[in-house]
């Protein structure tokens, strides 16, 4: 069926099977491959995107047809005119990534988290990111990255 989904400000009109998961719509139909798929059970969070500007969702647990008429933000939409988003900058400065596979989902979950809580404590960040898995960093530098981003977002 036909869907009209705004991804990173760009409207994508596509014809998809209802069973197409949002994650594969983004990857295969929009060719936005920054959204990753790491598991079969919606456990890993590599596929997290932001729905309608504030809700972090696992795009492997949502069908593309559900997003019809909605706006999706993916990792490709974070940087503005070549400038990294404060969250991207934080992950870079604090060495919050290694293999980079969980990074897009981590950053988008962080974004939604900071929209709800602008000044999270370490404990609150660890709670807020507990729906995303990382195998490389041990999370510690990711926490630092989110703290740096929180600071930067407040001052801006």
């Amino acid at each position, binding site marked *: 069926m036909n869907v009209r989904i705004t991804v990173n400000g760009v409207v994508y009109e596509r014809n998809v099977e209802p069973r197409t998961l949002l994650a594969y719509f983004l990857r295969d139909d929009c060719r936005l491959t920054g959204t990753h798929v790491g598991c079969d*059970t919606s*456990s890993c969070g590599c596929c997290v995107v932001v729905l309608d500007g504030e809700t972090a969702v696992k795009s492997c647990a949502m069908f593309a047809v559900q997003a019809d008429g909605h706006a999706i933000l993916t990792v490709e939409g974070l940087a503005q005119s070549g400038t990294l988003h404060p969250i991207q900058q934080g992950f870079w400065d604090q*060495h919050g990534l290694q293999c980079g596979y969980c*990074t897009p989902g981590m950053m988008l979950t962080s974004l939604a988290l900071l929209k709800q809580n602008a000044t999270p404590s370490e404990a609150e960040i660890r709670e807020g990111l507990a729906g995303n*898995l990382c195998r*490389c960093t041990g999370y*510690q530098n990711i926490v630092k990255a989110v703290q740096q981003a929180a600071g930067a977002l407040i001052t801006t």
Partner: protein
Amino acid sequence: MSTDSTKTRHSLGVPMKRKEDPRFLQGQGHYVDDISLPGMLSMAIVRSPYPHATITTIDIAAALTVPGVKAVITGKDLEAAGLGWLPTFHGFDKQMVLAIGKVLFQYQEVAAVFADTRAAAVDGAEAVRVEYEPLPVVPDPFTAKKDEVILRPDREAKTNHIFHWEVGDRDATMRALEQSATRVSRRIWFQRCHPAPLEPCGCVALFDAMGRLQFHVTSQAPHVYRTALSIVTGIPEDKIHVISPDLGGGFGNKVPVYPGYVCAVVGALKLGRPVKWIETRTENLTSTGFARDYHMDVELGATADGTLTGLRVSTVADHGAFDAAADPTKYPAGMFGIVTGSYAFPVAHAEVDAYFTNKAPGGIAYRCSFRVTEASYAIERAMDILADELGIDPVELRRRNFVKKEQFPYASALGFTYDSGDYHQTLQKALDTIGYTDLLKEQAEKRLRGELMGIGFSTFTEVVGAGPSRHFDILGIKMFDSAEIRIHPTGAGVVRTGTKSQGQGHETTWAQIVAEELGLDPQNIMVEEGDTDTAPYGLGTYASRSTPVAGAAIAVAARRVRDKARKIAAHLLEVGEADVEWTDYKFQVRGVPSRSVTMKEVAFAAYTNPGQNEPGLEATNYYDPPNMTFPSGAYVAVVDIDRETGEVRVRRFLAVDDCGTVINPLVVEGQIHGGLTEGFAIAFMQEIQYDAEGNNQNTNFTDYLLPTSLETPHWETAKTVTPSPHHPLGAKGVGESPNVGSPAAFVNAVVDALSPLGVRHIDMPITREKVWRAIRDAETRPAATVSAR
């Protein structure tokens, strides 16, 4: 773009931000599943629900009628094409690509379906009808040992026993143990677990217009894949191009060649279209390389005052249905000989017997040098059991038996020559940093109140950087590694190596090594890996061999570039080469600082004004390490235990690592955090369990437990630096130390907390229920020695 550039002159040891990050941060990483080619087909695999069964029929008719399905292949088709079997890396066994006649483990590959879309491929796989006649299941190596059911009649020897390997002096060790004042022995099991990188394995295969195989694959060792594929398929090696793009983690899981890869290549050949195969998580956990599964009987002897007299380890290894353990040819049990650890044993003996079972094949080096994690865990756990028996503080027992600083290079009882180390200093740093005396005081007080607090140590030594070619090879290929450096006219350059980063940050650290050796800007040294058309032949990245082997190759190649540059500098400075010295990252006339040229100037001259010298500025080195490197560390875990529920809280964890010279402290710390987290996961969560019927119980992330940010402890790190005497930079490698060293620290801490109850050991993973049972059993059976499984 970053202030790091100003620091190029001291590039080594600089916490430089990673050069590769911008693409990952912006979703521009390039992973295998990101590849999309015109006309590309998707492949899905039909797998067996039975762990051991005869295949009576495979009916593909219905599958072929599914819209979008283009073809289905089975084991018979492959056998007819001479591709029924795939050699395993160390060359002692072969593995079915698609089941032929019977299946030997649950989720084994039975048929491959090719279709226009991912969905159609899955629909097709679902439509393939396979009938099985179940056979008796061999669920563990102890059952296998009885040889009542022979799993591999295809092999010459009609037994489930795969190999016996041993090292050391058995008789002398037995004598030493018999004469020891104190002896302790314990069966210690290192459970089967799985590396589970977040990116599953996969590939895209196509034959281009030139009939050349373009093979994009998640591989930690692309060159070995090229050679292996050539051997398996008979395609000339020049007609195979292996590209390993960005990898979403590997941890050893992406070393072996998997059946799915061969199927994809066959499909691409058969259908003349590109074929993509991307594993599901379930497929990854149930069919690709697992790790560990060593049942180790460890025995230690000591004098009354706690001086070690001997060590004996006898291991039963579960290798699964095919012997696909990724160990060097001459080392079927890998580096298990490191089981003497950091201690001066006069004698020791270790043996390993491996068996086939109805489980997935593997036995890969999961974030560790081959079988080093098993060995380190065994000795560090056993040292605590001995300390308990002797009534000596485990710290004191370790101190008393450490190999002393002045004993290096140290020849171990099991044949390794440890390059360097200062174990006493590393441990002391750990004790001071964690505040050991205060912790002991707190623990004593808590024990009076009946509270359970534990302090656990692990003072491990690993052996990494395989390896010297006289000992180490894979498929006969010596385990050297390589680097090729080209400096461009403007002083920028490119370095290519045979290794392959999976997140370790080679694009940054390799550039730092070149920049350090040549006084250039690391921001302008491009690093290229993973493309067999451009990179020099190398054995790849695993077993912490990148820095010890490829890192050395880069340094040596850079020095060759510098030697050539010196000649050109002499020409530019109009003096003899002997009068040119390399000081402060530039060439100058000996003793005349005013007359100097920079490497940048020399690079330009190499292409514009080389004088009598051969133009150009590049060099290649194939580095054959004279020895392995031996990183070490002292780890401390502090835990509190909830008596009611058995819950363990890791209050503090300190890792003091000695990996020799540090190239990039930022990257090293990141590696340590990650390794500790996987060690924590292994100690408390990760396990691939099979039930008595041979069913895999942990087939996805809802039951194969990976810790989240909430369970993961806060890590404290520190370091001591004891350079490797034989490595050009003194570096030893670090990526795996924390995963090798930490499990024992966690378990030792938990057992220490429970020791007042008489608990001596708990096998990993340490679940709440195991701890609760240990406590309850101790309370119901006072004064008895308790062990929970």
